[in-house]
């Protein structure tokens, strides 16, 4: 009798919750390979071939990298965002709370990849830009530093940011029902750093050839960097949502309900 009771209870128990961390791990590995290779390439080719933009070697070793990035990145952007939109869940109204929770946790784990990409753009490569441009006189907008910070790091986190936004509004009812303004800021604020590059390069080309990093010409980057403060608002929203979801999928003892 007891054995039968145990069997019945076991069949009624919900499958244990396991977070899917694979996309996050794959993302972190791919980004690490890209960014460390980029940094190694700078070390190898910047002093050797990157000092004079009129030198044919500059075209071979630097402009070829730039053009490759400019061609590949929009393709990846369209492919990723397009894939997420075309494979969207068309029945979000019927989504079970359990699946909703799994998707939310997967999405949050992918925010780690977004943060990782933003870190390389906003910290390592951005300050590396200071070390290069305060040392080497610039004779082009496409310097060995800019080719990676502006045209690799920034597009990479923009691709990830927009993909995460598309995932959120196509698969997670909380973000699909109404669009979170902090989420828009967390994605669009860092995105606006790329258009700011246009203003920055325009200014450097026409009135400010010498370099000091705190020049007002650079403050556009600061303004849009502040949008990350909205991450606090997003965190508060997600916490409220998690409380609501956990209430639906667990009982008072904290066990998952089938």
């Amino acid at each position, binding site marked *: 009798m007891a054995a039968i009771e145990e069997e019945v209870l076991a069949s009624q128990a919900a499958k244990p919750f396991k977070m899917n961390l694979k996309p996050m791990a794959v993302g972190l590995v791919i980004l690490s390979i890209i960014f460390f290779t980029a940094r190694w390439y700078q070390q190898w080719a910047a002093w050797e071939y990157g000092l004079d933009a009129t030198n044919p070697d500059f075209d071979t070793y630097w402009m070829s990298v730039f053009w490759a990035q400019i061609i590949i990145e929009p393709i990846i952007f369209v492919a990723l965002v397009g894939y997420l939109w075309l494979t969207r869940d068309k029945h979000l109204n019927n989504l079970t709370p359990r699946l909703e929770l799994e998707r939310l946790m997967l999405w949050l784990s992918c925010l780690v990849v977004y943060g990782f990409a933003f870190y390389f*753009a906003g910290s390592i490569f951005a300050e590396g830009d200071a070390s290069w441009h305060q040392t080497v*006189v610039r004779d082009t907008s496409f310097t060995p530093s800019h080719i990676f910070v502006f045209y690799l790091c920034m597009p990479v986190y923009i691709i990830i940011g927009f993909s995460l936004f598309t995932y959120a509004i196509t698969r997670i009812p909380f973000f699909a029902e109404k669009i979170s303004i902090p989420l828009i800021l967390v994605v669009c604020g860092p995105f606006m750093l790329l258009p700011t590059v246009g203003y920055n390069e325009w200014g450097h080309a026409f009135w400010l050839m010498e370099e000091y990093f705190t020049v007002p010409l650079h403050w556009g980057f600061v303004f849009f960097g502040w949008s990350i403060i909205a991450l606090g608002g997003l965190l508060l929203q997600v916490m409220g949502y998690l409380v609501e979801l956990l209430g639906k999928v*667990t009982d008072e003892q904290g066990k998952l309900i089938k």
Partner: protein
Amino acid sequence: MSLTAEEAKLLKAISVPNSDAAKIVRNFDWIVVVVLLFAVTAAFHIHFMLTAGDWDFWVDWKDRMYWVTLTPMILVIIPAALSYPLMHKLGLPIAGTVCGLCLVIGEWVSRISGFHLWAYFPYSLVWPAIVLPGLMLMDLFYMLFRNVFLASVFGGGAVAMAFAPANWPILAPYHVPVVHIEQLVNVADVIGYSFTRTATPEYLRFIERGTLRTFGGESTLVSTFFSAFVCMILFYMWWRIGQFLSNLGTIPNQLKTFVGLEADKDEAK
């Protein structure tokens, strides 16, 4: 602050050791911690390097007027804004400490990778300022007072008041006087002269004016007090901005019918 019924139920559920709810919440915590560390490092570092960076990059820019005045003002901004969600909403007095720690890590990684390994500057020229003591005091005062006005006055002010004393032990040897080509300069100046920053013209390099050097140590003190005054105001302003950005809410999604959700009633009409 009272808990809703849902929150009370969840609190009970996650208090059960090893329950599914506890495990999910723990996973959530870890993810948030990692996201915050990366995002704060990136955002705080880019904010800091583009507004006070030159003073922080180079030892010969670490003067007794602008460096001491400006750096704390720039330092207090993002920690104050993040104090709203972290301390006011979640009860975690860690915004200043987390920001300071992230900034120091981000700076050291880039000083080693960019300034030292790539541009070949010595560490003695490019070490970052010590910012943690003031930011930790900011958190401490906010935790003690639990009041934004008092936290602004004492916590915001502490960021500036602790800055020069925290940096003095490491900076003092660079301010030892040296005679260089028959001119009285200091060790930091000589290091600066030795490692030319070709793209940063000499007229942009900060060298202390004579008046500052004849005032003994007072210029640091005056700069510190002025900076503390501005930091108090900035803390309050940016705490309010953090409050605004944390409570922005939502906007209607015009595309939600594409994912099987019903259109809002107003739109259907």
